[in-house]
């Protein structure tokens, strides 16, 4: 709703509801305060709400956009905790175990979260509790906008409605029908009699146990191996262009230390700038072999980091090894790496960063007779699979796109005598061929024609690789055409 309100041009006191399409017509997804005062409620049908007040304005909601926003906020919330999880449609779950003191305590942490979201124009309800379920319940159903509870979780939860246990709607409804409206009344019932009346998935006893920490509730999607990461918070938002570079000088030694401890080398490195307005800017580079040499890493990422757009200012930076591989802390020899493999890998990294990974490539052969397919290219950062080289004689240079030429030849399948390429006439002095290459029928259309390749040499001794596409009467088109494909050295 707030996301919509930021970008809409309705007056703040218009009764607007956001709707999504349901099975039986539009369903209200979110309401503004004036609409709520007129009886509209999220989850109700639009027609029902209109029956109460016909002046409601319905606007289609954008759930994908909301999800994207939550996703983005989850990444942004990485500033508070390394473990952030999107929980449901509009909740974020942060594991702040052992984190709060970095912000001066739990109260300060909550205040920081609230202010920063408020700056971003979003209202929040924050709860810190010993269990994830309790935190969720307090955040969604608690009376205050922010709750912190420690050992008194049970007491704090007591007044909440049973819906706070996050049971399936049917189970909640059953409990309400039984008159068990709050958690305290539920907790008062004998466990065994309660457990018998519910299936395992929606057992309120289990839910209660989870909320009170008597039963474990593991965080899902928790990455057990956290990527090496260095974080730098700034006192004040920095907008000057040197800020990322200066931050790098502090972050890189920190990250390298972590890598050293874990015997890792970076393959992909990302510099993340956290902006004041809740967005992030990312610059990432890749390396062709794992590396943890500070000088090399700095040189790779410095240019890209300096180009990060600060927007309204960065207030934190993180340097993260998105992809790290094992790298033993071995010294190969006393002198500098004599084989030069590491040197070459570093060169590839530098070239790829500056020119783009798709401009720095190594040849990758394929099992094919078609010349343009037989030799592909692959970014030099990737691995190359070894494939046996063909035995046939091939030109040193190949035109990306074969160029049509006019050829004088003895039809239908005689050798070429003379050709015109790029408006210049070449008289052929010597010719060798044809080398017939059939189309690959299993991947080309049935109209593809065979090619007869000739190695020709003109009067001046320049040698070319030309081909005739098709033969007369092959039923795949008219007269065959000639093409220039390669140049011999």
């Amino acid at each position, binding site marked *: 709703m707030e996301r919509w309100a930021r970008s809409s041009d309705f007056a703040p006191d218009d009764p607007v509801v956001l709707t999504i399409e349901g099975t039986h017509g539009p369903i209200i997804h979110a309401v503004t305060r004036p609409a709520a005062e007129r009886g509209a409620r999220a989850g109700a049908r639009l027609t029902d709400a209109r029956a109460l007040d016909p002046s409601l304005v319905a606007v289609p909601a954008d759930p994908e956009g909301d999800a994207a926003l939550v996703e983005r906020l989850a990444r942004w919330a990485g500033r508070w905790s390394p473990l952030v999880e999107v929980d449901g449609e509009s909740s974020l779950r942060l594991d702040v175990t052992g984190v709060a003191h970095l912000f001066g305590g739990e109260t300060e942490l909550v205040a920081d979260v609230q202010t920063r979201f408020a700056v971003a124009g979003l209202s929040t309800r924050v709860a810190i509790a010993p269990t994830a379920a309790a935190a969720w319940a307090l955040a969604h159903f608690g009376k205050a906008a922010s709750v912190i509870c420690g050992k008194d979780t049970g007491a704090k939860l007591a007044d909440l409605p049973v819906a706070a246990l996050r049971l399936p709607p049917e189970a909640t409804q059953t409990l309400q029908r039984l008159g068990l409206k709050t958690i305290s009344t539920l907790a008062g019932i004998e466990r065994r009699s309660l457990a018998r009346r519910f299936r395992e998935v929606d057992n309120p006893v289990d839910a209660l146990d989870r909320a009170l920490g008597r039963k474990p509730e593991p965080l899902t999607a928790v990455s057990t191996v956290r990527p090496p990461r260095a974080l730098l918070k700034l006192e004040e938002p920095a907008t000057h262009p040197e800020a990322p570079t200066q931050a790098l000088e502090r972050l890189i030694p920190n990250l390298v230390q972590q890598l050293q401890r874990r015997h890792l080398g970076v393959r992909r490195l990302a510099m993340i700038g956290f902006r004041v307005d809740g967005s992030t800017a990312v610059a990432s580079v890749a390396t062709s072999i794992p590396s943890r040499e500070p000088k090399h890493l700095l040189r790779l990422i410095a240019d890209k980091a300096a180009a990060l757009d600060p927007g309204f200012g960065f207030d934190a930076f993180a340097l993260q090894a998105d992809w790290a591989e094992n790298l033993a802390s071995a010294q190969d020899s006393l002198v500098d790496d004599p084989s*030069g493999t590491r040197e070459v890998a570093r060169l590839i990294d530098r070239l790829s960063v500056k020119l783009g990974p798709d401009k720095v490539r190594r040849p990758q052969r394929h099992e094919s007779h078609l010349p343009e397919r037989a030799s592909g290219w692959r970014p030099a950062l990737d691995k190359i699979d070894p494939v046996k080289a063909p035995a046939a004689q091939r030109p040193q240079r190949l035109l990306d796109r074969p160029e049509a030429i006019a050829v004088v030849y003895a039809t239908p399948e005689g050798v070429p005598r003379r050709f015109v390429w790029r408006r210049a006439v070449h008289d052929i002095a010597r010719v060798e061929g044809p080398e017939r290459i059939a189309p690959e029928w299993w991947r080309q259309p049935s109209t593809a024609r065979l090619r007869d390749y000739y190695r020709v040499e003109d009067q001046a001794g320049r040698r070319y690789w030309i081909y005739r596409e098709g033969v007369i009467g092959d039923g795949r088109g008219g007269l065959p055409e000639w093409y220039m494909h390669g140049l011999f*050295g």
Partner: protein
Amino acid sequence: MSRVAKGLSLVAGDGSRAAISPASGAAPDAPLPGVRWPLPAPPGPTLSELFAASPRDAGWAGFLLAQAERSKPLLWVQERMAILESGRIYPPGLGSMELIHVEARDARAALWAMEEGLRCSGLSGVIGELWGDPQALDFTATRRLAVAAERSRVPCWLVRLAGIANLSGARMRWRIASRPSLLNPFDPRASGASAWDVELFRARGYPPGRWAIAHEAGAFHLVAAPSGGTLGEVERLRA
């Protein structure tokens, strides 16, 4: 330039064809007749400049590959325009070597990539192809390449397609054109071993000259010296 004198030989004479016709009695698989001839080479790896006689003549590639060292990776930088005009390098035709190919947007990027490559001692060589006479390629740029090549002991070849030989810091400057290939011992209508007219028109510590040389299966042979060895001196005086 690396030392390649091992397979080079020179056949002096005006009619190169006659000198190597099969009538001379050479068996098809016998080495080419010719005088062993040391290719002018500087004392250490440095920058050499190669001018292609024409953009549609790729003869220089054969001449260059014949002397390329293959033990370590080779960095081959091509400017976009060079790729459009005279084709992208085609690895199956280059023989077995480890290759890193860089497609540079313009001459400035190509020169930068070459210089970066020259700082890396793990390469066997750097080849850069530039089209025309770009602004970025001035005396300073070539001099930087030469110094970088000498410092890291990585040979560098700057190939100029459709370019004019302006001021340059290159230690050796060649002009290379294809010439009719040698006779093919198996098929008289087909072309045989490649042959080139090479002209060394400026070199430090070496007299300029013009030669016709051929290359066959790992060896260079000089098939003809059209104007004799002294011509170089004459032309240098005239220039």
